């Protein structure tokens, strides 16, 4: 009979710690403390620079060259999808990378779209990290989502690695590729604008990681959405391309690639033309992850991801014309502290081209960036851990119902109202409303009578019966209302389209919303009267 412990004890003899361990620990602690002080100083300095920069921009607007998106998008904004975690506390360095959530761009409680459940080992349910959803992208019609899986770490079996497509309505999943030796990962997925092909990057051996120039390699492949007709994309003299992004007309692809240990962004027409190197003066803060805007006028990209994933930042979001001109630094993100797993993800353009989505890094926030002003809006929702994408809703489709979502903080007099994540400041079909105490005023906008209700709310139309539309809608953060003194923005979503008392005639009405906070002590009812304008949907 073999005694395990004896065997181990004998083996451990071979692994005696080196002398001076404690001294090294002391040095390390001192260095960490010093770095913390330096980081705090750098953050303060950067914040000051950002403030000064914003002030200068505001003073001299005429010098800036805004990159105006086209006013004619082909799709409206659906939900945002992101790889997230079952865990909400990142303090113990735990996070999941195998769960895909979707959330309204205005924020709120996300819902699970896909949970890989660590398919090779169903027992692993807590921060298992067995498989990672590396990248995601929606089909142009918003009905399917493509994603890549890979298994990290040594000893990986790789049996689940590959490209997958899930049909949202049926939840049917189809595996398109496998990743067998020498392939170690397929990633950076991007669906072509006409939906006919999917591009992705494949890593062979060590991929394109620093110091592996002579060992690993990367390539871009394209295939049909059923996995057939897999072909490698020729990139001429440029080797090791990754991060493919189709131009909106499908005639070109933007990508990033390394030359030696430097990185550049390229665009390349698919007619066999030689790639055009862009952002050539930024190799020391490597430009990567180009993303073509829906109108084709702009390419957004990131720079400055720290090679050390412990640092998680800083990073910067840039935009430029497809020829590399008019480059602008739109947004600076800094810094997530240690213990995170991924740096910034994105950029992802909103389907209507009016916003850029970025993820600050594992445990950071989802941010919407205005592509003209660079202003940022943090989506109030669960913290993401990995890749992000944005569901398009083709204009004129049955699912394009012009949803009204708005969020507000009932304790903030100077609140903003957001429509699908965009501050409503322009034309409005609603009006100003004031609560009974006269403390809060805000606007609402109801383009298609469609509003969704939060759990616990009741809605009435003036002159009509109170509608019981208290459906169990998984939106809204009502449950958090009394647990913290600093309230998050509350997302109110109503769906009156099918409400029995909803007037069908276009006109102006009032919606009486009574938000009851049952967990408040004492129970609190916050009534609001919203004027809404019922507008006949187009074509009716």
């Amino acid at each position, binding site marked *: 009979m073999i005694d395990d412990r004896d*065997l181990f004890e004998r083996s451990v003899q071979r692994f005696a710690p080196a002398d001076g361990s404690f001294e090294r620990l002391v040095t390390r602690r001192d260095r960490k403390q010093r770095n913390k002080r330096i980081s705090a100083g750098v953050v303060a300095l950067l914040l000051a620079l950002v403030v000064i920069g914003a002030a200068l921009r505001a003073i001299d607007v005429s010098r800036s060259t805004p990159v105006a998106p086209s006013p004619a998008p082909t799709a409206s904004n659906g939900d945002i999808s992101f790889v997230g975690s079952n865990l909400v506390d990142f303090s113990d360095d735990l996070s999941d990378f195998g769960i895909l959530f979707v959330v309204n761009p205005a924020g709120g409680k996300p819902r699970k779209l896909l949970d890989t459940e660590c398919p090779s080992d169903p027992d*692993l349910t807590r921060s298992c990290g067995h498989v990672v959803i*590396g990248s995601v992208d929606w089909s142009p019609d918003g009905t399917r989502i493509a994603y890549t899986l890979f298994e990290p770490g040594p000893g990986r079996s790789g049996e689940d690695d590959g490209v997958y497509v899930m049909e949202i309505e049926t939840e049917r999943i189809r595996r398109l590729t496998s990743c067998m030796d020498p392939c170690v990962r397929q990633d950076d997925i991007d669906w072509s604008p006409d939906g006919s092909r999917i591009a992705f990057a494949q890593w062979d051996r060590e991929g394109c990681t620093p110091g592996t120039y002579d060992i690993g390699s990367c390539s871009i492949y394209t295939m049909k959405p059923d996995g057939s007709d897999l072909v490698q994309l020729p990139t001429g003299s440029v080797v090791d391309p990754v991060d493919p992004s189709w131009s909106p007309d499908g005639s070109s692809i933007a990508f990033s690639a*390394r030359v030696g240990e430097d990185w550049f962004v390229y665009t390349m027409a698919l007619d066999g033309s030689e790639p055009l190197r862009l952002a050539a003066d930024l190799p020391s803060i490597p430009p*990567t992850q180009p993303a073509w805007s829906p109108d084709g006028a702009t390419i957004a990209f990131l720079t400055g991801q720290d090679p050390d994933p412990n640092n998680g930042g800083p990073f910067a979001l840039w935009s430029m014309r497809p020829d590399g001109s008019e480059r602008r630094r739109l947004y600076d993100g800094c810094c997530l502290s240690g213990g995170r797993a991924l740096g910034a993800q994105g950029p992802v353009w909103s389907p209507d081209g009016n916003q850029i989505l970025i993820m600050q890094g594992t445990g950071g926030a989802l941010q919407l960036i205005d592509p003209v002003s660079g202003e940022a809006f943090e989506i109030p929702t669960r913290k993401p851990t990995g890749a992000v994408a944005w569901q398009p809703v083709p204009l004129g489709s049955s699912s394009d119902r012009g949803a009204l979502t708005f969020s507000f903080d009932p304790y903030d007099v100077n609140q903003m109202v957001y429509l699908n994540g965009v501050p409503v400041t322009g034309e409005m079909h609603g009006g100003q409303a004031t609560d009974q105490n006269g403390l809060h005023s805000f606007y609402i906008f109801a383009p298609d009578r469609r509003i969704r209700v939060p759990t616990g709310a009741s809605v009435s139309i003036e002159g009509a019966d109170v509608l019981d539309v208290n459906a169990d809608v998984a939106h809204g953060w009502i449950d958090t209302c009394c647990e913290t003194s600093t309230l998050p923005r509350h997302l109110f979503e109503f769906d009156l389209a099918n409400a029995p008392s909803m007037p069908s005639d276009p006109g102006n009405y009032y919606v009486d919303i009574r938000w009851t906070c049952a967990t408040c002590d004492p129970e609190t009812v916050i009534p609001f009267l919203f004027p809404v304008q019922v507008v006949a949907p187009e074509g009716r």
Partner: protein
Amino acid sequence: MDGSLRALPGAEVETDVAEEPRRFEDFFGSEHARLFGAISLVTGDRHEAEEIMQDAFLRLWERWDRVRELDDPSSYLFRTAMNVFRNRYRRAALGVRKTLSLAPSEDAFATVEDRDVVVRALRGLTPDQRAAVVLTGYVGLTSEEAGKMLGMRANTVRTLATRARAAIREKAGERT
């Protein structure tokens, strides 16, 4: 009122001088060799083990005021070390995304010397299997305790450890 404290009826009266708070330096001295050995078995790499050990001790040191009050700071240390180990491997793999980070390191067991039967057996196992068998077989934890450290269910730990033990026994059998 003279300000002195009186024991409640039935309560034990502590007559000793209050215990000196446990010093981190002493804790390090008593635990680091055992931890280093365990991590070395899991990683198969002295340098990696040293890094993980340093990370784990540093985290404890930063929270030492609270950690030293724990009933079993040693368990907390091992748990922290296992978290560091798992996250290092995961980060090494995840960090390579977008090509700007470190590649997943080569599994060090592929290169470690093979004179030792345990080392030879561990070489063929996954990191999770190695961690499971070392925590249960060497550190002496139950599957439940090891599961908590590794973020797994106890059943999973048992399965992993059983496979690992079988491999070790097979190697031991080969030697004899």
